[in-house]
Each structure stands twice: as C-alpha cells, then as structure tokens.
C-alpha cells in the first residue's frame, strides 16, 4: 500500500511542466484559439460591429471581476456584486428623473453617477465589516447582501421597470471618445488602475501579503482589517459602476435583472484568469483575459446557433479546467 503511495509523487512531477506552462499561458492560448476559431468559422467575425458587441458586453464583467480579483487576492470572495449592481441601477434613474428629490437636470446626472457608486461602496464596506469584525466567512457574509440586495433594489423601485432616455447619463454606455465606446475606456482605465495598485502601491502589496499568509502579515504590522475593508469597498464601488453602465446601455433598469448572475461570471473570470481562489495572487491581466474568454465562448456558441443554456455548460467546463490546472501547477 505504501509502496504505491510513495511512487505517485514521482510520476506526478514528471507531468508537471506542461501544467505549469498551461497555468501561466493557458488563458492567453484559449483566447487566441477562440479568436482563430471564430475567424474561420463565424461569419462576419472580423467586423467593427462584432468587436463592438463583444467589447461592450464584456466591459461590465471586467469591471466587476477586477474588484473580485482584489477580494479573492485577500483570500475572500464577494457574492453580493450582482445585487449591488441592481441597487446602483435602481437608484440612478430615480435621481436623474427627480423622483427622489427635485434636482437640476445637469446636477441630477452628475449625482446619478456619483451617489449610486458611493452607496455600493458603503454596502461593500458593510461586507468587509461583517468579515473583519465578526469573523464571518466571506462567502456567508456576502451572501447576506447577495440575497437582501436584490430585495432592496426591488423595494426601492416598487418592483417597477424604470425606462428612461437621458443621453447625458447614457454617455457612459452609448458615448464614444475618439470612436471608442466610453464603457470600454472605463474598463481599460479600471484595469490599468488596478494593475498599478497591485504592482506599485503599498496597499496593493499588503493585499497580496494578507492573502498569502494572513498570520505572517499581521505579525509584520500590516493592518489586516483595513486592507480587507478596502478590497470589499472597492469591489462594491466597481459593482456600482458596472450597474450604471448596464442600465445606461439598456435605457432601462429592472431590479430583477440588472447584474443577475454577475457574481458567477466575475468569479469565473478570476478563476479562468489564473488568480488562485485561495488568495495571495492577483493577476489583473489574467482576469481581463478570463472575462474575454468567457465572453468569446458565449458569443461563439450563440453565433453558431448553440443555445445559451448549452453555453452555460461550456462555461462551467472552462472553470473546472482552469481551477484544475491552477491547483496542479501550484503543487509543482
């Protein structure tokens, strides 16, 4: 019995190097493969319109997934992002349509862009508060707002669909600067900021340290509580921003639908992107690529006539493959 057990590690090490390679470049390879596949198999793939559709659809996922990456880097998880999107999406139209308080139209748009994000950030702080003060496991702590958040959004709007046409507000989704959709610019800006945060700043390195070894981090004087609060606030605020983009794109806000299932897309993007779900690593570029891969898989299947339901199964398969590769590679 022991003989067979002792021989297996040797066999495993021999097959490690391709796994390490896959764990490092797998996401990028999958991304390239999907593009190549579509170039040959999907009609009109190489067109501005296709690019536009994909970029605008992926932008909110990327934005939320980046917040998620920071939370996961500390060893946590944030299930509430979809519900926070719904709350932000519910509040914004009420502000610029003057339903909450009478307001000048220009100021209204400005407030509609700021207040929902602040509120989402505060709700993120609440998540962090539960995690740090009461030592509730992150998956349970954020489940609170995952469930309650959408309820709150429905109560705010009385469950009504809010339809609007407000070009100034909708600039964040419909507008273009130099031909590039504003939401894509926002996505790139968020990604660039997060990348710099993780690489260059003190708090960024402290986030990685907390996720890498929380006990050791505390013993070097890192304010573990503050670091955790920070990532949940950022995750909440970014979810708020994504919520605004989604409703601006749809010209409508439905508390039942805004951000529905987003937490899973975001977690999937992080997992496929190569950040360990156990924390201690934050691969921002990986997360962006991961979101693109998930988006492209969905697009590929839809464009080739495979129903959305089947796309979900493929997405699940991708996540399993990514996590499997990560775990095996990190044991090497």
């Amino acid at each position, binding site marked *: 019995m022991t003989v067979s057990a002792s021989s297996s590690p040797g066999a495993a090490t021999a097959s490690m190097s391709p796994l390490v390679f896959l764990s490092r470049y797998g996401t990028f390879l999958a991304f390239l493969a999907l593009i190549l596949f579509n170039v040959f198999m999907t009609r009109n793939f190489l067109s501005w319109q296709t690019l536009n559709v994909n970029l605008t659809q992926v932008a909110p996922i990327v934005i939320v997934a980046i917040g998620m990456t920071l939370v996961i880097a500390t060893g946590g998880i944030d299930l509430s992002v979809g519900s926070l999107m719904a709350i932000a999406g519910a509040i914004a139209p009420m502000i610029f349509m003057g339903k909450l308080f009478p307001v000048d139209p220009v100021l209204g748009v400005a407030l509609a862009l700021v207040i929902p994000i602040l509120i989402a950030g505060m709700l993120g702080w609440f998540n962090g508060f539960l995690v740090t003060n009461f030592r509730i496991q992150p998956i349970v702590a954020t489940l609170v707002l995952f469930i309650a958040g959408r309820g709150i959004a429905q109560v705010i709007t009385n469950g009504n669909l809010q339809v609007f046409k407000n070009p100034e507000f909708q600039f964040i989704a419909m507008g273009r600067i130099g031909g590039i959709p504003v939401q894509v610019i926002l996505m790139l800006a968020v990604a660039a900021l997060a990348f710099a945060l993780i690489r260059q700043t*003190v708090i960024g390195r402290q986030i990685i340290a907390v996720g*890498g070894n929380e*006990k050791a981090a505390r013993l070097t004087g890192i304010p573990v509580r503050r670091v955790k609060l920070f990532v949940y606030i950022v995750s909440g605020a970014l979810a708020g921003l994504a919520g605004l983009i989604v409703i601006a794109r749809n010209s409508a806000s439905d508390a039942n639908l805004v951000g529905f299932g987003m937490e899973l897309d975001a977690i999937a993007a992080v997992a496929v992107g190569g950040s360990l779900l156990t924390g201690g690593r934050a691969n921002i570029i990986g997360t962006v690529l991961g979101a693109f891969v998930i988006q492209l898989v969905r697009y590929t299947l839809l464009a080739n006539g495979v129903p959305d339901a089947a796309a979900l199964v493929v997405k699940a398969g991708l996540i399993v493959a990514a996590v499997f590769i990560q775990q095996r590679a990190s044991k090497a």
Partner: protein
Amino acid sequence: MLLSMQNISKSFAGIPALREASLEIAPGEAMALVGQNGAGKSTLVKILTGAYTRDSGTIRFGGRDVAFGSPAESQAGGIATIYQEINLAPQRSVAENIYLSREPRRFGFLDRAAMREGARKVLKTFNLDIDVDLPVARFSAATRQMVAIARSVTQNARLLIMDEPTSSLDEREVVVLFETIRTLKKRGVAILFIGHRLDELYAICERVTIMRDGQTVAVSDMAAMPKMELVRHMLDRELAAFQAMASSKVEGPEKPVRMEADAIGSGVRVRDVDLTIRQGEISGLAGLLGSGRSETARILFGDDRFDKGSLRFEGQERRYREPADAIADGIGLVSEDRKVDGIIPDMSIRENMTLALLPRLRKAGIVDRARQEEIVRHFIKALGVKCASPDQPIKELSGGNQQKVLLARWLCTDPKVLIVDEPTRGIDIGAKAEILKLLRSLADEGLSVLMISSELEELLAAADRVTVLSDGRSVAELPRAALSEASLLAAMAHQDAEHQNPAGNVS
C-alpha cells in the same frame, strides 16, 4: 509487558526520525514519554497506532506481534488515544459521543435509553455525575476529556495514550484527571503519558522513557530519576561549535533597561512572568517545551493580550493591542515557525524582506522601488543571503537563508528590540553560528535582543543573561556570571518545594 516496541526505525524522505527506538509498558502502569520537539515521540506513537508504518522493528501488544494498518485497527485492538484537542463531536450529547459509531440498537433504531444508562454508569466510575443528554460543547475541557476517556473505556482499551492531556486544564481539573488515571490504573489499564510538566509526570507516572534525536536514551523508574538528570537526558548533546562566542565585554556596569514585564500573565500558558530586556544585551529566555516561552514573546509583541501584570517600554506603561502597536515602538519578532507565521511563500525575497518597512517606503502611496532595491541588496550582502536574485520566491530558499531574510525584515526597520524565537531551528550548523554571531554584533551595537532557545549551548554561547520559565512562571534570572549548564538545568527542572506535586503524591 503489555506493550513492547523494539528497535523501531523510521525515515521520512531519507531523514531518520526514529533510530532503533524502544518503548515498553506494563499493564496498570503509567509510563511517561518525554523529549524535546523533534525527539521522535509523536512518530513513535503514530507508528504504534498505525498512522505511520515502521521501516523496521517489532511491536508486541498483549503477547502477540502486531502491525496495525490504521488508527481504527489499533483502536479495535485495544489502544485508545486522547489527543490534546479532544476529538469529540462537540454538538452531540455526552451519551452519543461515548457510543459514537457503535450505538446500541433495538429493531434497527437507536436505543437511546440504553445509551443514556450506559453512559451514566461508566461516568459514575469516574465520579462524574453530569447530564448525559447535554452536548459536550457545554462542558469544561476537563469534563470533555473525561468523556473521551469514558469512551475509550467502553471500547475496552487496554492502553490509553494521552498526548499532553493537561495542557488546557487548570490545576483543579488536573487533580480530577489524575484521579481518573489512578482509577484506570487500578483496573489494569496502561497509560502512556506524553507531557512536559515535570511535576505532573512525577505525580502520576511510575516510569519514564526519555527520547532524544529519534532514540530512546533512558528508561527508568520515576523515583530513581532526579529531575535534573531527566532534563539533562532530554537536552544533552555534544556541546560543540559555539563554545567560545561569549560576550566581548565580560562584566560591565548594568546596562539600562529597555523593556520590562512585571508579573505578566495571560490564560493558563503564561501565569506570572518577570522579564527584563536591557539595551545592548542578548537576554535569553529558556524553559522546557510548554513552559510559556513563545506565549510570553507574543504578549511582548502585542500578538496576545495580557490579563495580569504590567508591561513597560522605556519606562512607559504599554498595553499593545496589535503587533502594529509594538512595531511602532521599534519591536520586531522573528517567530518560531517560519512557514506558518513567518514567510509569505509565494512572494519574493525582496517583498518578504521589506514587508514591515513598506509603509516607510511609501511616496504618495507608491512603493519607492529604487530605495527598496537598495535596502534589499544591502541586507542580502550584509547577512550573506544565498539566492539567485532578490526576486526569487522565498519558498525556494533553504531554512537558514529564509531565516536571514526574516531577520533582515526587522533589521531594515532599525528596531530597538528584536525578539527571536528559536532563531536557529531547522538550520544547518554553519548558518547557526553565523546567525548567533550576527545577533551578538547587533547587540554590541546597542540592539536589545530577546532570544528564545531550547538549546543550552546556544544560550550559554550567546546570552548575557537568561530568564528561565517553568510552567508559565519565571523561576530564575541568571546573569552572565551565574550561567552554566548546571545552573540552567537546575532552574529548568525547577527544584522548588513550592510547586512540587500539584496533584497529590506519587501513587
């Protein structure tokens, strides 16, 4: 003999953990098993219970050769183990726990009446009268332990292995536990008692087996083995390597006090510790395993709070709430277990080294990379860290080099007090001497060092004074002049009438 283990050897990845170790226990006797960390006690026990397979040697239990393949097999064979943190199902009732996995049944259903009755009966033999329907989590640690023991008795265990059974008990509870052990012994049950509190061993055990470096170095009647002798057997090694590294200044005037703990205490691990850390000195902190050394260090560093006594830093009263508070005063701690609470394995040497310094490397929130590089290069060179590049992950370094990086983590913050807990554990002999030399020269430059060590020669070689702890109390402060192997051993064995035999006479 009920149990006879002979010539047991076991290696892990080529490194021997046990070399021809042996252990014998007679029915109805309590055998003490003692030794330092890494002496091989737990490996020996795990081989006995079937958790590990031995490489060679024989085990006879109850007159037959045995080779248990798993803990479940040894349990069925009559060997029960009571762990430090007892393995009971905390939310289930006392009766359910006693009969866990062999519940009495009637017509296929649990026979709760029989369970209750049986549980009450067996607990009564230990003079324990409790409501067996309450979940075990509602009872004290001592009672939970009793439930675990009762469970093993109903399984007809003939040998009971107790691994530090008193570590979470207060003195009153220890008395109750010892009563129980005496009852068991009268019934012919043998006890293997693994522990570090010498007084307790003398109070309850007939014989003692001492292990060191994977070998059984002594077996003796408890009464024939003076404490001093016992401690010497546990610690003795060829004194070598650092004999002559003593302080450069032999006897100067008393150096000013930097940090002072006065009758400090927290829970049961640290009860009453006086400790003085002086400027420019290496203060040693000695004591056997479980005497509260690391726990004391954690209090000084703000990682644990104290509920008794007082702490002063440079004359000022202090009550640190977080390590960050102590760090702000200029205190650093290199902890005992590098892997668990020292290194961040996936981060680079550069980042691990500057983790504590990071806030001071901040320029508008951004890490000043140039200064960071400069500092890291300086310390890699100054401490002789052997690495491919500062960006190599720290987990790839050897133990000695990791330790140097962790020392540098604090040295680069220019600390006033550096606490090092077992600074040379798991490090090869050359690196050991280097690290001790480094601590010495730092102290000569004015740093206060508190060095916790289980190695006598290390303390003798490096420390300017040594405070000895025993069972959570400081029992001696030995200045340089009074430091010798004999004086340290005597203090560690703590031959002091006051605390002798807390739990009654030797039975």
